[in-house]
């Protein structure tokens, strides 16, 4: 009798443990998902701060190279009064397209297009695919908006494409510097590259900020759910 009682108690205990485990599994899964959001949030914060520092270094370098160019070429050749005021298409444009993430949020998708002004009907772009949540909280139709002329398709072979794009980009770079003269010093070209890199970093910062805000929202939601469970 006693042995039967012990067996029954053991079985009851086992069943209770199984029931407890079944109740704890979704909570553990939820905790894992919450940890994942927190880790993603912390990663995005770290990347955001790293990008800011990188931007600061790049801009400092660019400004010093510009001063070095003024020192080399002379103040009369490198000054703001030589900048071209004639109407011309923008060499860089930012395109916004909608992007749906996890069927939860609709985030704008920003694409930076450098040296995008048309030249004989063809253009060369260097896309910077990036996800930005800069319009979080704003409603409205996410229409593409970009300055400069739209991209046209190119019918060229895949091998020739990178070389032609590089040549065209180099030509556009030289043309934009021609406001200071066609024979400019290497320091001025280096300054141009530095500011170009800084622009790319700015877009990356915007992307990282949106990721950061998105993951923060996820963490916030998880905290809210956890409070409800308790």
């Amino acid at each position, binding site marked *: 009798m006693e042995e039967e009682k012990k067996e029954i108690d053991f079985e009851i205990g086992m069943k209770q443990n199984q029931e407890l485990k079944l109740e704890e599994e979704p909570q553990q899964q939820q905790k894992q998902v919450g940890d994942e959001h927190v880790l993603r949030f912390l990663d995005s914060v770290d990347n955001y701060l790293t990008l800011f520092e990188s931007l600061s270094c790049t801009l400092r370098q660019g400004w010093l190279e510009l001063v070095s160019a003024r020192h080399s070429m002379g*103040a009369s050749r490198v000054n703001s*009064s030589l900048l071209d005021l004639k109407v011309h298409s923008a060499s860089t444009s930012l395109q916004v397209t909608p992007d749906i993430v996890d069927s939860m949020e609709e985030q704008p998708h920003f694409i930076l297009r450098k040296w995008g002004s048309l030249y004989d009907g063809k253009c060369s772009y260097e896309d910077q695919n990036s996800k930005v949540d800069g319009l979080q909280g704003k409603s409205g139709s996410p229409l593409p908006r970009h300055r400069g002329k739209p991209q046209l398709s190119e019918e060229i072979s895949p091998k020739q494409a990178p070389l032609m794009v590089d040549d065209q980009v180099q030509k556009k770079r030289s043309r934009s510097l021609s406001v200071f*003269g066609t024979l400019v010093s290497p320091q001025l070209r280096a300054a141009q590259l530095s500011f170009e890199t800084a622009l790319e970093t700015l877009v990356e910062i915007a992307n990282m900020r949106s990721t950061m805000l998105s993951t923060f929202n996820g963490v916030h939601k998880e905290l809210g759910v956890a409070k409800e469970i308790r």
Partner: protein
Amino acid sequence: MYGFEALTFNIHGGYLEAIVRGHRSGLFTAADYNNLCQCETLDDIKMHLSATEYGPYLQNEPSPLHTTTIVEKCTLKLVDEYKHMLCQATEPLSTFLEYCRYGHMIDNVVLIVTGTLHERDVQELLEKCHPLGMFDSIASLAVAQNMRELYRLVLVDTPLAPYFSECITSEDLDDMNIEIMRNTLYKAYLEDFNRFCQKLGGATAEIMSDLLAFEADRRAVNITINSIGTELTRDDRKKLYSNFGLLYPYGHEELAVCEDLDQVRGVMEKYPPYQSIFSRLSYGESQLLDKAFYEEEVKRLCLAFEQQFHYAVFFAYIRLREQEIRNLMWISECVAQNQKSRVHDSVVFIF
């Protein structure tokens, strides 16, 4: 006749040579530059400069100062000194002093023409012109559409008129043509200046031929490096080199076909005076080349003061003062941008 200037030079040039040697003693020393390099703000720089000859020019400038203001006011000092010497000079020194400012006139002409091409306001462009290069009809440059009009309407009555014979075309002014015009004018100016100095003879001819040859060679190197990767053809590049100097003519032949900095180095290292300059640079490095050339120029300009009774001291003083202003510009920018670790990258000590 070389060697007999001591008998007659001081009659007309003695006073001004004394004046220019006095100005030379006011140039900054290494100790002055070290003090300036330790400044934390532009107001600190202004405070240090107030104890120098630049003091009266900066004392009324309100804070916050801008680096362009410092450069502008320091340049005014040079202009005042130059004008005083010019009005006291007799021939041929007055012509020699006029030659010293033709380079700035060329820069101003190109600035006005380029700015007008870019639809900038003429008054704004005139404010950016170098004061040493101003002339009466400079504002009229804005109406010209091509080089022929430029010459006919404005420049025919200026000292630059003889230099236009090689670049008069009816082509419209665009960025490439303006660049070619700039370098062609400067080439003609240097050659004319060299001929004038040779005609003067004596110590002036000897010292100025060395200084102008160095200037011509440096321009050839800069044109070569700056034209790498551009649309300028080899023939057009060669046409921009002056027809004198240590590199003329064989060095120019080799420089015309250079496609990168290392090839330029290979050409220049064949000439002993320039071997020392390029030996300080590592391969592929171009940033320190300007500083190396400025240091060599300063060395040669300082040597001009070792002899008396010649006009090269005036040219040397103007160039040394311009170098000092460049140093002040660099130091001010490094302080303003909080990049004092880079301040010694481009400062060239004179003494």
